[in-house]
């Protein structure tokens, strides 16, 4: 064996060793460096993710020194990580629960950003007209009490529709999701039986039906299986041109889900919105209100640790609830009503760092 070969081998093994060391050493470095651009990180709800990504890129164009990173890991992750203070802001579809707020290390504010809605979609080849549902009928279908499409209760709201005598296949979300939370929150409000047997939450124990993964999974199963009923986000239903049902609101009129009927729901309920803006606007009063609507929130500490980062974050959110709203409609989110923008402004104004106001 020549010396050359041997040294080559030694060099190779050393190279492998160095490569291994490097892969260990290259772990992520701590964030929040004072020099260079200001880095903000957030995590949470998947529902507003397309809008937040748009905001991040548009805001980045205006302020090149601020870099914002939003990861859509789900509302649960958003709440968890803001409580653990591993991110600068969290995001959640449903407002945080009292016990979660209490166990957080500081006072958390809820800043509403936009609104969404949950729509009922279905697959009935013979039915050409748009179906209409009363709240109790939706609850009974999802409770498994209405089993056939030609049930008199469904027919009562849809005179003239050729409803088949076949079994209803119920489809719901399989994974925990804000969409399910809003839907079950609505069902709990309009059906005492639902409230008692199932309750409201991101992953309830569904009495009947099959689970589809994500909006696309539910859509796929509704589209491909005859005689199904499912629920998806408004934006998703519009983009995919799904048949969408009208739902009877608390004023007794059947309303089609749309950006306007969702904003109307928020405006109608603005008077009842509590001080901390944590509110469920399902089943809101008003004639032109779509009843299965909801806010989505950004979660932020009232007392910011770092004044520079805190100011950047407050400025970004201020921009979001004003200029940022113009990006909502093209992406099929409903914009905040004017009253709520005012109240969110007051929340942002109250944010401080070391006792000094940031805005």
């Amino acid at each position: 064996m020549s010396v050359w070969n041997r040294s080559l081998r030694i060099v190779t093994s050393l190279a492998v060793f160095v490569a291994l060391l490097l892969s260990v050493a290259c772990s992520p470095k701590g964030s929040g460096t004072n020099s260079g651009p200001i880095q903000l990180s957030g995590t949470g709800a998947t529902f507003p993710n397309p809008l937040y990504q748009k905001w991040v890129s548009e805001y980045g164009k205006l302020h090149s020194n601020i870099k914002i990173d939003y990861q859509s890991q789900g509302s649960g992750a958003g709440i968890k990580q803001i409580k653990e203070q591993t991110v600068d802001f969290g995001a959640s579809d449903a407002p945080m629960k009292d016990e979660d707020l209490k166990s957080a290390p500081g006072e958390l504010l809820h800043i509403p950003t936009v609104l969404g809605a949950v729509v009922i979609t279905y697959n009935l080849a013979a039915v050409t007209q748009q179906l209409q549902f009363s709240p109790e009928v939706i609850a009974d279908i999802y409770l498994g009490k209405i089993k056939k499409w030609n049930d008199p209760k469904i027919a009562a709201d849809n005179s003239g529709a050729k409803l088949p005598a076949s079994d209803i296949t119920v489809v719901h979300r399989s994974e925990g999701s804000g969409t399910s939370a809003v839907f079950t929150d609505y069902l709990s409000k309009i059906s005492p039986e639902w409230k008692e047997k199932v309750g409201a939450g991101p992953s309830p124990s569904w009495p009947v039906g099959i689970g589809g993964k994500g909006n696309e999974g539910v859509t796929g199963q509704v589209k491909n299986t005859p005689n199904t009923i499912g629920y998806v986000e408004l934006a998703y239903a519009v983009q995919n041109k799904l048949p969408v049902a009208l739902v009877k609101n608390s004023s007794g009129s059947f309303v089609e889900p749309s950006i306007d009927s969702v904003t109307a729901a928020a405006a109608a309920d603005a008077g009842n919105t509590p001080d901390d803006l944590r509110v469920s606007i399902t089943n809101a009063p008003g004639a032109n209100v779509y009843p299965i609507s909801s806010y989505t929130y950004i979660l932020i500490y009232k007392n910011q640790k770092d004044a520079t980062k805190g100011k950047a974050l407050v400025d970004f959110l201020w921009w979001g609830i004003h200029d940022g709203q113009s990006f909502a409609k093209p992406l099929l989110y409903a914009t905040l009503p004017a009253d709520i923008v005012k109240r969110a402004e007051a929340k942002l104004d109250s944010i401080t760092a070391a006792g000094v106001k940031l805005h």
Partner: protein
Amino acid sequence: MSATSPDKIVIPGKHSDWRRVLSPTGNTGDAIFRGLMFLVGLLMVSVVIAMVIALASDSMMSIRQFGFGFLKSRHWNPIKGEFGALPFIYGTIVSSLIALLISVPFSLGIAVFLVEQAPHYVARPIGFLVELLAAIPSVVYGVWGIFVLAPFLRVYIEPPIATVLGWLPLFQGTITGIGLLTGGIILAIMITPIISAVVRDVLAAVPGSQREAALALGATKWEMIRVVLVNGAPGIAGAVILGLGRALGETMAVTMVIGNRPEISLSLFAPSYTIASAIANEFTEATTDLYLSALVELGLILFLVTFVVNGIARVLVWNVTRKTGGVGRAA
């Protein structure tokens, strides 16, 4: 001769230092290499141990709360804080068994065809295509499952099965194309390339003399292939274990077609749920600590199920190997 004192004799590569300890020949390169490989091996073992410790400690809350009841309970209701793993364990094991039941005969057939029957110009492209199946991302299988496989099963396969075998509880209930059977079939397609590729290599390793001997004794081609299969039995069993491992842990494709319902139903048409899908589905919105802990415990259970299944399979393989002394080792 006597002029040379012993301490001046130079034996090439003789070192009394660390090189000696690490390498019998005292070669520096060998010593470094051996040390390095030892570290790499150790790293893998420590990763496994660290994972078990992390899973166990994070699921402590759930273990304390539910104890063994977690394994026996059929109730999974996050809103009410009730968590039971039995439906997930059932779904995981049954869907994997369906997958094996379908996949193993196909895989053996493919391997036998490729090694014993097909001419070279056919075997190469077919072998390549089968292995290509293993490279398709599982989410693609899932989407294909929703849009092609499930409607196909609903219209052409499940209704005839229900008419002929509907008296069995296995094939009753509403036919939606989504359920345990569809999950098993998707898994079968996914593990077939793995099993058949390994079996092919195992059969190719059976010495040609075995075949010649069988043929020389007047065996037909079929009898000769049986000899080859018996010789390769331990290796084939190893291939099946590999496939089973993949089936137990598969997540995305299964969750898209299995219906995701934590319920134990005898019918293969009914929706079901697997451990891996449950973790993937519910982790993002698991807001309470107990919920999160229960999901981690599910992960721990999947780890144990895989461990036990692998252990059983290895004992089986070991038994067969001792009896037949065939070629091919458990992978």
